[in-house]
């Protein structure tokens, strides 16, 4: 099974990182490129995202992740020292504390800089206390902020910035990191598979009889700024929720024999986790999942997937292998590279049907 090998499956030329949103490179949001992999045939189709209407049929159900991107990066100062720390929020825990990546301005070792009880001060009188280092992902620390709930959210929006990576050409504003259909604020990073949907396209699909439903899974960090840890692609435990309404639509779509298409790998994870939990059926729930979906996983609910183009490290591609054999993904990716598709959150997309 090539997919679990740790050696890169292909090399991604550096200039194929989308360094700006499509709207800032002369395209509308829904005009990025779309590579369609047919699960049942040996062919790929290259098209433009807004032509997805031609590949979906009335009765098909698109399932979105309604999580809204937070300005999850906050700059603070360690109390009693000159150390500047960037806090990248990763996950809200049930007790109201956060797991976060701490990025110090000093090159010293993390363990020397961060200790239990350390207080980090931010603007607007917000502060947090470092509680402990996470055991599973040692780059993360558990923090307790001086505010919780909507009061914390309000301050976060005053202080925070979206989490941004080096390949970007400018510090794009938070509004560029938002899916038009996003609702519940909570994602550390944009669930970017759905970014290309415009309202125009969503309304068009609706008029065409394509159904839609939403689940919520707040996406965590895509990188811990640690090459080794990132290569392992540790799947963290994530919370997801499925509403009664979404569960109903999924049930109806399955009964009528239509396709359920996940917009993003988070949706695959949520729906398949729910099915695993409830004996093959998706029910309304708020649950945690540790499910790892790989090549030999038998998908129970989802038959199609819209996703971005993933990093070359094989582990990033393993979920896709549950849909199509790795060789086929690599072949498609080779074409994508040849045709100069763009990677990352502002880039092009891949539909597996």
């Amino acid at each position, binding site marked *: 099974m090539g997919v679990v090998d740790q050696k890169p499956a292909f090399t991604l030329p550096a200039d194929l990182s989308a360094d700006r949103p499509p709207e800032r490179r002369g395209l509308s949001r829904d005009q990025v490129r779309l590579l369609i992999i047919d699960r049942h045939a040996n062919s790929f189709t290259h098209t433009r995202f807004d032509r997805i209407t031609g590949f979906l049929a009335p009765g098909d159900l698109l399932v979105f992740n309604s999580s809204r991107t937070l300005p999850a990066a906050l700059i603070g100062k360690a109390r009693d020292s000159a150390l500047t720390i960037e806090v990248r929020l990763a996950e809200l825990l049930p007790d109201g504390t956060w797991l976060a990546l701490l990025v110090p301005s000093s090159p010293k070792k993390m363990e020397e800089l961060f200790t239990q009880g350390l207080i980090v001060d931010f603007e607007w009188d917000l502060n947090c206390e470092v509680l402990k280092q996470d055991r599973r992902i040692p780059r993360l620390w558990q923090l307790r902020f001086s505010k919780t709930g*909507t009061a914390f959210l309000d301050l976060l929006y005053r202080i925070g910035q979206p989490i941004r990576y080096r390949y970007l050409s400018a510090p794009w504003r938070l509004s560029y990191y938002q899916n038009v259909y996003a609702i519940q604020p909570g994602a550390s990073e944009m669930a970017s598979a759905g970014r290309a949907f415009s*309202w125009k396209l969503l309304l068009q699909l609706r008029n065409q009889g394509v159904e839609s439903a939403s689940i919520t899974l707040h996406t965590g960090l895509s990188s811990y700024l640690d090459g080794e840890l990132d290569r392992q692609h540790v799947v963290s435990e994530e919370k997801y929720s499925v509403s009664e309404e979404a569960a109903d639509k999924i049930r109806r779509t399955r009964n009528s024999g239509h396709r359920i298409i996940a917009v993003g790998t988070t949706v695959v994870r949520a729906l398949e986790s729910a099915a695993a939990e409830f004996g093959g059926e998706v029910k309304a729930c708020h649950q945690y999942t540790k499910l790892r979906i790989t090549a030999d996983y038998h998908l129970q609910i989802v038959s199609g997937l819209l996703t971005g183009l993933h990093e070359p490290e094989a582990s990033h591609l393993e979920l896709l292998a549950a849909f199509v054999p790795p060789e086929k993904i690599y072949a498609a990716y080779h074409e994508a590279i040849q045709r100069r598709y763009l990677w990352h959150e502002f880039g092009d997309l891949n539909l597996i049907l």
Partner: protein
Amino acid sequence: MKLLAGKFALITGASQGLGRELALTYAREGVRGLALVARSKDLLQSLASEIYRIRPNLNVAIINADLGSSVEVERVAAVTLAACEGRLDILVNNASTIGPVPMPYLLDYPADDFHQVLNVNLIAPFLLIQNLLAAMIDHGGSIINVTSDAGRVGYPGWGAYGISKFGLEGLSQTWAAELAKTDVRINWIDPGNMNTAMHREAEPDEDPTAWSDPAAVTDIFVFLASDSGQHVRGERLEAQSKWRARLQKG
């Protein structure tokens, strides 16, 4: 049953004048929760205390923000979405600034003020609708933009304010057309002359007692936000006209 039972409403410009009256009226009409936006925190807080006297356990989110900044609008949207738990039923774009007073001729209007007035009165409603539509579209909702007579007639001296309301009427029309096949309806209301701080500042030489109390024009805002107004969409309405005879069914 109360007319707005179970509904969550966002009202901008709730610290005084019409917005404040709308918040109190919506609370009395049984809303499930309110998100209230304005710059003056103290006024919002005292409004919230008054609301708790009517509805002790009502979910009231006070959002202290300057709608002239698009970054602030994003915060307003996020806090509202969290407070309403992802389901928003009513959005009233009421906040407005009159701009500099005494009101200069357009010919003399400072460019910075022109921008600020458009930001608050036109861009903020545009961004709020754009950011909040996702929380309304699946189950339907009512958007009400507050316009003015100055949005139809170019009065001398009403400069950027009037132009922002012309813009708001255009925005409302376009949005009504784009959302025609959905359950989200958008209407825009001219409340007519009201005795509020804004109007007193705009026309200091007039007798404010000749103008309506803002509390007297809230009924059309309840009607449009409620399910009884479900059939009304894409309309410009005047609060101080005989709207009931025309709009009410049965």
